[in-house]
């Protein structure tokens, strides 16, 4: 469904992604693992073309999206949930959802405001409040819900478990498993190996923008030296 090959991305002169390549098939949940600064966020931004790669290719359902503007990519069915959340703090929760709204598509789960409120009941209670006055967990739910309003086929979740309470992390894991059941393809970036193992089918480990491992969690289990070298446990 998503195919990335030989991607090279830069911030100014700093070379961040180094010939990075991997692919994700339909219905899979893939965890992108790596330490702080490994390049996980940059990978996601490069997929969305929020960072323009210098070379390499990103293909979505066979279509080359490397030169498209971000909004076109989103409309093709890629939903991006940024690490910093970036909710519109001057807008109410309902208005935040409205920004993300796109027409439903045939080959992806269709979300409505009501369905999302069912998924995240906390949001419903505060639907007329502005984004400003929300806790970290609520903000995380809102960004995910906002992106789902676009009825994506593939969801890019950047560190969904970061900075939220343990109870909410558990809820988050259940939510992601539910997305999987609905047929969504998901890429999550994570530092939390435990969390990743619960929700994901496959792990991709990157370090300094290079792929170091690509395989199932049981394979990863058998190679503790990789885990120790590239993940902070």
């Amino acid at each position, binding site marked *: 469904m998503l195919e990335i090959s030989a991607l090279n991305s830069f911030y*100014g*002169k700093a070379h961040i992604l180094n010939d990075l390549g991997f692919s994700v098939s339909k219905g899979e949940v893939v965890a992108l693992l790596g330490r702080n600064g490994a390049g996980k966020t940059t990978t996601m931004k490069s997929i*969305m073309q*929020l960072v323009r790669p210098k070379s390499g290719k990103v293909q979505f359902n066979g279509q080359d999206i490397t030169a498209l*503007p*971000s*909004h076109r990519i*989103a*409309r093709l069915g890629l939903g*991006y949930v*940024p690490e910093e959340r*970036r909710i*519109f*703090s*001057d*807008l109410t929760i309902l*208005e*935040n959802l*409205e*920004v*993300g*709204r*796109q027409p439903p598509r045939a080959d992806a789960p269709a979300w409505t405001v009501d369905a999302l409120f069912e998924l995240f009941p906390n949001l419903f209670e505060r639907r007329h409040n502005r984004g400003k006055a929300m806790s970290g967990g609520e903000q995380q739910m809102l960004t995910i819900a*906002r*992106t789902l309003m*676009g009825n994506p086929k593939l969801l890019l979740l950047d560190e969904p478990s970061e900075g939220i309470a343990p109870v909410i992390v558990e809820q988050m894991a259940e939510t992601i498993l539910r997305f999987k059941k609905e047929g969504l393809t998901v890429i999550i970036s994570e530092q939390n190996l435990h969390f990743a193992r619960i929700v994901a089918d496959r792990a991709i480990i990157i370090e300094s923008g290079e792929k170091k491992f690509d395989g199932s969690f049981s394979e990863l289990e058998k190679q503790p030296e990789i885990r120790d070298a590239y993940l902070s446990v």
Partner: protein
Amino acid sequence: MGLFVAQLLTGLANAAALFLVASGLSLIFGVTRIVNFAHGSLYMLGAYFGVTLMNTLPGVFGFWTSILLSGLIVGVIGIAIEVCVLRPVYRAPELFQLVATFGVILVIQDLTLMVWGAEDRLGPRAPGLKSVVRILGEPVPQYDLALIAITPFILLALWWLIARTRVGVLVRAATQDREMVGALGVNQSWLFTGVFFLGSALAGLGGALQLPKGGADLLMDLNIISAVFVVVVIGGMGSIPGAFVASVLISVLNVFGVSYIPQSTLVLMYVVMAVVLLIRPYGLFGREEKAGEHGQVGEPDRPIRPAGTKGRLFVAALIAALALVPLVGENFTQVLITDIVIFCLFAASLQFMLSTGGLVSFGHAAYFGGGAYAAALLVTYADTPMELAFLFAPLAAGLLALIFGWFCIRLSGVYFAMLTLAFSQLVWSLVFQWYDVTGGDDGLVNIWPAEWLSGTTAYYYFTLIVGVGGIILLRQLAHAPFGYTLRATRDSARQAEATGINVKLVQWSAFAMAGAMAGLAGGLFVFSKGSIFPNELEIGKSFDALIVVFLGGVKTLSGGVVGAAFMESAKDWLTRLEYWRLILGLLIIGVVIIAPDGIVGTLRRVGERIGLLRTQEFMR
């Protein structure tokens, strides 16, 4: 009592056009982050189209249709500006976008002149609303009452659009984080173009709507723009209710000012603005801006280096050649070069704070003119000898910059720029309206240099020594530890703070230094001309300096000097052409889009490419 009410109503009626223009500007700024200096030009176009249409379409229906059509036409012109001029520079730093809109002002000025001619047009009276109503015994024009009735509906319609529709939600979201809005599948280009259409149409409506109270003339673009800035800044950039409240405040203040303190109406407006900004730096309804919030990242600046040997030799040769000019050149050449050197010093002083310090001032003329006026006032009222009065020019300007700078440096970005503009307009309006002391529009005359400097050639050498000395001093300062510290505060105030630099103090010193050097240029200027007029303090003068720094190259040290020399010499023949503004405007827009590095930056790049220069070894 009757008179009071009548004046209040006049003020409210005057607020209508001001509100329309200001809300348009505010809307555009909110979403695109562009301060559209050409917004006054769109207002002017609205008035001209309105006059033409009203003279064609008859009756009550024709009158109101004309107003709506004017708005639509100007909206479409706004789209053209957005697509052709601004779209290519959205990713560029703020200053580039501003300069591009300066270019648009010039182009529209000349196009209007071509189409409608130089003569002022009187606005037709509104059919059916030509008489007056007596309110408490005082006559109030019916049209004023109509305007007062219409404005709240426009406010309401705008409010509904922004608060209640999907477009409004997207606009507000984009105001906050336009990249994220794009990542969620919204086509920002359309959003921007749409907002530009709406904002421009509002300006056009304002221009047409005020016709029965005024008319159309070629000065109305710059005349309204400073009032609009005051309104937008007081109300808060990006806030529509803010624009409304501030329009009413300023218009009412103006009407009462005219009848009770006619000498200080202009001053009053800028005093109110300065006070509001001091108490609420982001305006009455504004939202605090955080630096870098909108993710404008450019290429990292190249480190600057002292000039290489080649560069030094070139400059030395140039100065030597200038010193030889009086031996061969005529008087005219010497006068021209004197003007050029003075302008170069003025531009260099702005460049010092702008490029090295990242402090974009819109009101640098205040210090140039301030220094000149300080010297001229001393000569006129205290018979001060020229030498002493001349020394006072940089001192007074530096002091002025010290005072204004203390307030300005508390703000940053657009708000900093606006406050510098407000202060410079304050100085201008004081000089312009305080006739008894400054001579107002008549200026101060007979300010000649001392005996030993009185010949053209003597003054030429004097200017050359002082001017070149000043420029070299500024360059040295940029390469001194102070310059490096200043650059650190520009690149990241927070990091600089963390390494123990007193950011505000450094910026304040740079502001004062730039002001003093501008004052020095002003001192040279006043004694070379023998007179000084308020136009040396005008917005236009500040813009001139910004434009030459930009043309020369913002990211260089010598850009201001090169740009000023280029511009001053080009002006001499350019202004002989009938439509020189059009040419200059197009040139500016072209530079912004095609060669944003400016003259110096482009030359350097070309030089490096063809191998004439080793990388980074140009006179910078």
